[in-house]
């Protein structure tokens, strides 16, 4: 058998064995172990990938090796940064913020009226089932080629998860907690600020976390349907056509890093805001 591939498989097996040992060993609850184990696993997957592409001579126009992707990544930092700003900062982030704020406002509205809630939520669930790939061309037609239409797609994508979670969260207080407020003759706003919003935070963050990955994907895909000549989605689709697969994967790498970092950031804020929640307390 091919020796490069053989070595990479051997590495995978070795790393897995090491992981098993670490995960079940003495320091299994240490932060370092928690970090090293997944990293090692990821690294062994990369090694396997490298082994397959090299060992089996997979053409670079089909699947480039990680090393080639890394080289391209380093050589094109400028382009990647420009695309990142266009797609992530302008498109995804602004859409995410607008969508979250809008969803939040509508949730308060919906929550204030039982009628609206029972009317809007089923319709909302139906709308959430619309595949965004279909909405994207329409929104590009409506909002133009630049980041605004990408932000619009992101707004549509993140709106419903946040709305549904917020509405659910605002109803998450138990009867006793609400009755307590009533015995104080607290006003609507007092109850909202002091009880229902804090209690809703774990739910709201659930929606916000789901939406981070949706936002990035939405912004990238929307660029397929028309864009200026920069942006991660633009680059991916263009470079596929040019068979520059290494560049495509470099963009995907950026997307994965940005997406994970975004997710991690929101999760971090969550841990600050909902420090009191049992799911956060254990650690």
């Amino acid at each position, binding site marked *: 058998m091919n020796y490069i591939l053989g070595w990479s498989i051997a590495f995978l097996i070795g790393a*897995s064995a090491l*992981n*098993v040992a670490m*995960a*079940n060993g003495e320091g*299994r609850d240490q932060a370092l*172990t*928690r970090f090293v*184990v*997944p990293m*090692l*696993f*990821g690294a062994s*997957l990369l090694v396997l990938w490298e082994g397959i592409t090299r060992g089996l001579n997979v053409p670079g126009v*089909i*699947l480039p090796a990680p090393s080639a992707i890394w080289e391209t990544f380093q050589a094109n930092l400028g382009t990647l940064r420009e695309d990142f700003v266009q797609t992530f900062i302008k498109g995804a982030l602004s859409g995410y913020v607008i969508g979250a704020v809008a969803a939040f406002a509508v949730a308060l509205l919906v929550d204030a009226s039982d*009628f*609206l*809630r*029972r*009317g*809007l939520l*089923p*319709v909302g669930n*139906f*709308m*959430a*089932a*619309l*595949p*965004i*790939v*279909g*909405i994207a*061309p*329409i929104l590009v*037609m*409506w909002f133009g080629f630049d980041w605004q239409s990408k932000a619009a797609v992101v707004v549509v994508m993140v709106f419903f998860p946040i709305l549904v979670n917020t509405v659910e969260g605002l109803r998450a207080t138990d009867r006793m907690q609400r009755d307590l407020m009533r015995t104080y003759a607290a006003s609507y706003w007092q109850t909202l600020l002091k009880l229902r919003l804090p209690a809703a935070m774990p739910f709201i963050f659930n929606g916000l976390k789901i939406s981070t*990955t949706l936002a*990035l*994907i939405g912004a*990238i*895909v929307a660029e*397929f*349907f028309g864009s200026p000549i920069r942006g*991660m*989605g633009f680059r*991916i*689709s263009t470079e*596929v056509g040019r068979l520059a*697969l290494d560049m*495509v994967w470099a963009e*995907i790498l950026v*997307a*994965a890093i*940005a*997406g*994970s970092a*975004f*997710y991690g950031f929101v999760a971090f804020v969550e841990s600050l805001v909902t420090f009191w929640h049992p799911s956060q307390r254990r650690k």
Partner: protein
Amino acid sequence: MADVALANHARGGAVGAGLRRMSAALVPVVVVVAAIIALWYVACVPMNIKEALTQAERAGAVIDPPSAIERRDASAIGLVFRNSDHIGATFGQERPRLPAPHQVGQELWNSTGDMVLRGRAFSKRSLIYHAWVTLSATVLGFAIGTVAGVALAVGIVHSRVMNMAVMPWAIASQTIPILAIAPMIIVVLNSIGITGLIPKALISAYLSFFPVTVGMVKGLRSPDAMQLDLLRTYSASQSETFWKLRLPSSMPYFFTSMKIGMAAALVGAIVGEMPTGAVAGLGARLLAGSYYGQTIQIWAALFAAAILAAVLVGIIGAIQGVTLKRMGMAR
């Protein structure tokens, strides 16, 4: 006396209660839908006014302002007020920016019900045919995704290494814009001899496995310490613990995550259809509509997709209802 009256009242209530509950659920939805449709019609006017005016101009009408170039930068609302006699034309365009609700409804009917009536339910122009094509990829992908998701969850719950090593990457995997690399996936799979339904199904499986994994990990871990300890006092084995405790108590989570997974699988199938050469399916239909600027057709396909999703999720919901009821978990 009073008791009799009360009993009567109760009985009357029981009969009426069902109806009342149904209408209580339905009325708000109907009102909201009506409001949305009304808003939609209103929105059609400014959205479509420019094209309506351009067409009227071509037909010889005098428009204010007279040239399309000037109108390009004018506000749509302003144009509506200055040319209010052309509002009617915004509801019947062939390629509207925003088709009116009745246009979408008409198109939906033409490509579904009407087709059935004419016995051509499975012709290429029928949305039923395209929905069917999408459905097969969705269901296959959903099945693969669910099995993979459950298997992964079982692994994560039972193995510390899996939990530590795999979970972070499962999250990271979802940040990869699969939609963007779907075409490449199809080519790569083609190159190792996998073609046809499977590539589409694999893309939808990729999107649907994650919610299932996350939900099932939660579900399989939902038994509390006491429930687990009970089995330990019986010296139950791991597999007995799985079959008799973990699996049954994960059922509510299982169904909830399947609903999300199903919706994701449908999106995956549609995305998978777009670059496979746009042969057939709702995704191909969306793309074709987009390619030829047939907005009405796009909207019809969009609604068909949403209806399909609603039906699929509804089916899971029904199975959930029956299963949980038989398991005594629905109250």
